[in-house]
């Protein structure tokens, strides 16, 4: 069933706003003392990334991100944070002994990224290709079950192994 093509509006504002929220919340994740604050900052990052996926015409991945990542993984993090002792954690020193080397390594990585993006400008297409609006979820679902059936089944096996492993790890007596 053909859908009307809708033109996007105010794209730079949405992009810069969502990207700013994502990057600032990511800085909040690594800098906060309280792990619960870090988890809430991670929620902000994941939600703004879901908005960026919507801007990239990927609504299914945006929905999966919100349901699985925010609704599953971060909730799991919060449960575990509640199980371990927070009060003593907040008063200790937060950064480890090799923080300077870590920062230098990340700076070298940043220089590498900048070099790749500046030198390789010619291979990135300069304008976004405009696809007509199609049924994204149906096509992703079809691809999952037709082209990527084996990785799909292996992913389900991986989740089974992860569940069994996590339960065995967290039990008091095996």
């Amino acid at each position, binding site marked *: 069933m053909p859908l009307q093509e809708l033109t996007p509006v105010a794209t730079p504002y949405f992009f810069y706003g969502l990207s700013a929220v994502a990057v600032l919340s990511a800085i909040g994740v690594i800098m906060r003392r309280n792990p619960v604050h870090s988890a809430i900052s991670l929620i902000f990052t994941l939600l703004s990334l879901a908005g960026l996926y919507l801007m990239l015409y990927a609504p299914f991945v945006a929905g999966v991100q919100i349901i699985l990542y925010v609704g599953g993984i971060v909730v799991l993090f919060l449960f575990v944070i509640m199980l371990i002792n927070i009060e003593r954690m907040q008063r200790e020193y937060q950064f480890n002994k090799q923080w300077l080397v870590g920062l230098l390594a990340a700076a070298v990585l940043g220089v590498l990224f900048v070099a790749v*993006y500046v030198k390789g400008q010619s291979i990135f297409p300069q304008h976004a290709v405009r696809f007509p609006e199609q049924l994204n979820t149906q096509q992703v679902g079809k*691809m999952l079950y037709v082209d990527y059936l084996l990785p799909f089944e292996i992913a389900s096996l991986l989740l089974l192994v992860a569940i069994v492993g996590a339960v065995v790890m967290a039990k008091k007596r095996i």
Partner: protein
Amino acid sequence: MEITTLHYLVVAAALFIIGTIGVLTRRNVVIILMSIELILNAVNLNLVAFSRLYGLHGQVFSIFVITDAAAEAAVGLGILIAFFRNKETVNADEIDLLKF
């Protein structure tokens, strides 16, 4: 200025670097695991940005990445709980014994 693919790649690179700084400099293991989730999300943003140009394979792969991130977070937090029961600490530099 029109938003091209390169804009999304730069945002993904920034998130990757911030996640790497978190993994390399923080002591708290829970924060380290959350920084690993940041790195995986940066990779997902790259995949979805390129899938806009080259077909839906990037989006399908990013769904698998999210699935793997869930499994890894569950197992990592299970290990953390198991260790916390033994030594009452969640700092990475105090976890230094191979056998009690």
